[in-house]
């Protein structure tokens, strides 16, 4: 931590030790918890992917079959969506967005901690299903009647239902926090039209989650009631309708796709200008097209259901709205390309990932247009073409951008650089691995291989494609190993980064690396879309230098009162209470009462905690 932080008379909370992590309300520590948790689940979900691909390496394989295969397949999808991509992006948002806003924390620090505990405990809860009676096995969208009794007996689906709802609670609380933080906590001068694009996309994503998640909450609760209380929502024999599930699920499920891609686009929009040494081309168009994608995202859900037999007019309307989304998406692609055009390109790891994102995401976007055309969709729905398409969007898109974001912000979070040579190696393994793994899926899908089958016959012409696909998956695994080595090596041995290693232009580069617990000693004043470039490159240093405290200002700072919220156990208690209740809903009603008691204890402590109490001097810190 920089030397001048000690000159502040502010109380410091301890940042080390287990209890500091368990009680933290600091957005940066919470962001790191999100990222580490999601990183762990990335290894779990990746391992599941390798199991699946190993089974499919040759026809008639018997490595992983039947129900077990279905469990691994369901958990791979659920894990990657809810436990990897969403929390990775939420973690980066948590760490970076308040810094970009020039704020000292999120609007609701304890709610923020509650969100991360719901995610971590929810992830543990869902994965415990493997040893507590079997994991869910109905695919990541758990269509009824397959997911209903009697077709899915056992507790797997119930674990899935409450796991999803725990992630939902996590995302709703994080989204409320993001919306209020972004609208209310901006530094002076940081108008909406000067917000970094990553903040714009995080804001849009927060609204998407707020309006999409209740739909899957309802869908899953109704499924639980059907399964456990004998109700009839999805049961045709009792007058219900299995199709309701598909509508409720995809009303969530399609906006969810944009939840996973928009912040990734935001990361790319931050990286490209910095490494092209010029401003983002068409800022306004990029920002507003993010919002447009968010709006349109709510009007397209039935394109997942073309084959179920909706009236042709409905299908046509949804095909039309789906294709409309190509417009704002293309606007972004053109603006990114134009940002690179004529720039002074610095080919360092973050830029590689950003450009790799554009390349692979274009494949994902174009294959999406095929699926939006109803007759083509009839032909290729539920084939490996869909699997290839969604992996180009979520792997080639979101995950590559996430790796880019990690390379870009690692110096800010740790104060050390990641090794760039290893970064290049990892990128090429990842990029070529993604082509090798998923292009054959597109081909074999067109040739008719259905998704979710655990084996296929020899002589159908699918062997070579599946072999290539599996080799690609192994290649991606090697790339992740390179990343892990780079990560841990750099964490301890990396070159010191300094405050601003990339010569960035957003406010996170105006503070120390890692930032002090209060982020900024002096709240920055923003005069353009690139405040830190203004400070570095314009003759006008008014009103303050941000990268160091001027002598006369340091004197005044002694009296500045920076209030930081005290640590709190209550978010964790509350989350544990909800987790116990979730176990109760799966296993036994008595356990619900136990969880309820813990939960109410947490609420009672939470509302009585005096968050403005004077703070005891910290043992260590600063």
């Amino acid at each position, binding site marked *: 931590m920089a030397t001048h932080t000690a000159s502040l008379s502010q109380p410091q909370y301890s940042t080390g030790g287990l209890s500091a992590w368990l009680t933290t309300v600091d957005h940066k520590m919470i962001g790191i918890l999100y990222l580490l948790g999601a990183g762990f689940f990335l290894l779990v979900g990746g391992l599941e992917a390798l199991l699946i691909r190993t089974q499919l390496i040759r026809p008639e394989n018997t490595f992983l079959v039947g129900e077990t295969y279905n469990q691994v397949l369901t958990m791979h999808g659920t894990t990657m969506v809810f436990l990897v991509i969403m929390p990775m992006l939420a973690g980066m948002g948590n760490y970076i967005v308040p810094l970009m806003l020039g704020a000292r924390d999120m609007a609701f620090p304890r709610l923020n901690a509650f969100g991360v505990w719901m995610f971590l405990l929810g992830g543990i809860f869902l994965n415990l299903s493997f040893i507590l009676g079997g994991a869910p096995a109905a695919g990541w969208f758990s269509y009824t009647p397959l997911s209903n009794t009697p077709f899915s007996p056992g507790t797997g689906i119930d674990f899935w239902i409450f796991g999803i709802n725990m992630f939902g609670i996590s995302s709703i609380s994080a989204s409320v926090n993001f919306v209020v933080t972004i609208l209310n906590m901006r530094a002076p001068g940081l108008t909406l039209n000067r917000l970094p694009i990553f903040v714009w996309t995080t804001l849009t994503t927060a609204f998407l989650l707020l309006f999409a998640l209740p739909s899957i909450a309802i869908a899953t609760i109704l499924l639980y009631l059907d399964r456990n209380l004998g109700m009839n929502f999805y049961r045709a024999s009792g007058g219900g309708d299995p199709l309701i599930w598909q509508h409720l699920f995809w009303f969530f499920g399609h906006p969810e796709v944009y939840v996973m891609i928009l912040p990734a686009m935001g990361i790319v929009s931050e990286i490209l200008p910095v490494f092209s040494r010029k401003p983002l081309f068409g800022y306004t168009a990029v920002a507003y097209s993010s919002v447009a994608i968010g709006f349109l995202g709510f009007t397209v859900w039935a394109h997942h259901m073309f084959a179920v037999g909706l009236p042709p007019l409905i299908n046509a309307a949804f095909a039309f709205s789906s294709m409309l989304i190509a417009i704002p998406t293309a606007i972004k692609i053109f603006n990114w390309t134009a940002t690179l055009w004529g720039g002074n390109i610095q080919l360092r790891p973050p830029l590689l990932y950003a450009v790799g994102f554009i390349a692979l995401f274009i494949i994902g976007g174009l294959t999406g247009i095929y699926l939006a055309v109803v007759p083509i969709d009839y032909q290729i729905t539920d084939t490996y073409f869909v699997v290839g398409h969604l992996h180009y969007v979520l792997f080639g898109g979101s995950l590559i951008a996430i790796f880019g974001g990690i390379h870009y912000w690692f110096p800010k979070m740790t104060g050390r650089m990641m090794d760039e040579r290893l970064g290049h190696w990892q990128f090429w393994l990842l990029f070529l691995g993604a082509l090798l793994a998923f292009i054959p899926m597109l081909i074999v899908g067109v040739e008719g291989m259905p998704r979710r089958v655990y084996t296929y016959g020899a002589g159908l012409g699918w062997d070579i494609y599946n072999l290539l696909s599996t080799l690609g998956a192994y290649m991606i695994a090697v790339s992740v190993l390179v990343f892990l080595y780079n990560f841990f090596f750099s964490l301890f041995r990396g070159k010191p980064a300094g405050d601003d290693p990339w010569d960035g232009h957003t406010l996170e580069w105006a503070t120390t690396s890692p930032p002090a617990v209060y982020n900024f000693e002096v709240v920055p004043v923003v005069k353009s879309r690139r405040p830190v470039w203004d400070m570095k490159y314009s003759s006008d240093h008014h009103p303050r230098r941000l990268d160091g405290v001027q002598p006369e200002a340091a004197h005044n700072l002694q009296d500045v009162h920076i209030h930081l919220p005290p640590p709190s156990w209550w978010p964790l208690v509350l989350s544990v209470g909800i987790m116990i209740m979730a176990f109760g809903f799966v296993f036994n009603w008595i356990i619900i009462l136990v969880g309820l008691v813990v939960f109410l204890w947490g*609420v009672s402590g939470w509302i009585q905690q005096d968050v403005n109490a004077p703070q005891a001097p910290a043992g260590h810190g600063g």
Partner: protein
Amino acid sequence: MATGTSSVTDTTSHAAAAVEHEGMIDTRKMGVWTFLGSEVIFFGALIVTYLTLHNRPTSGPTAHESLSLLIPTINTMILLISSVAMVMGLAALRDDNVKGMIRWILVTAGLGTLFLILKGVEYYEHSQEGLTPAVNVFGSVYYTLTGFHALHVLIGVLWMLAAVGLASRGRFSARNYIPIEIMGLYWHFVDLVWVAVFMVVYLIR
């Protein structure tokens, strides 16, 4: 624990409010508005499911046979009056009349409880007539929609009782009224949802 009114003013917005902006909506209020926006979709999804499924042909009691207007109409009146009581409570607090505020909040909580009791009576009558959640799809959608609303009423009542407990320890004042105001926002929202439920479930049978 020090719960002097001054020390707990702005219990949440202290954390990072870089700069106070003039005329800006309070952080906590904006948080609750945002959350209620999400709740609209929660009940919206339930109501759409209800409208889609409640008249599906099936055996067992139908909406037209089972539902009567008497108790729901009384309940509508109860909730609307309770919203007025909530407004009076907030007004009393803004006049620094904490005692008056506690009284009005208790009236609101009492009306909420009365609503729940009458809802329970209604459920009991239904079950006597053979309408249970599992009997057919109408039973499922009816109990689930009204049950989730009743759960929200229950949470509101508990929230009010907790607020009364904190108020009696001097937590709120004319300068620190936002926590009561956001509780009111939630309560009015729950009332509004009931108006929608009343129309959808009871008036359009």
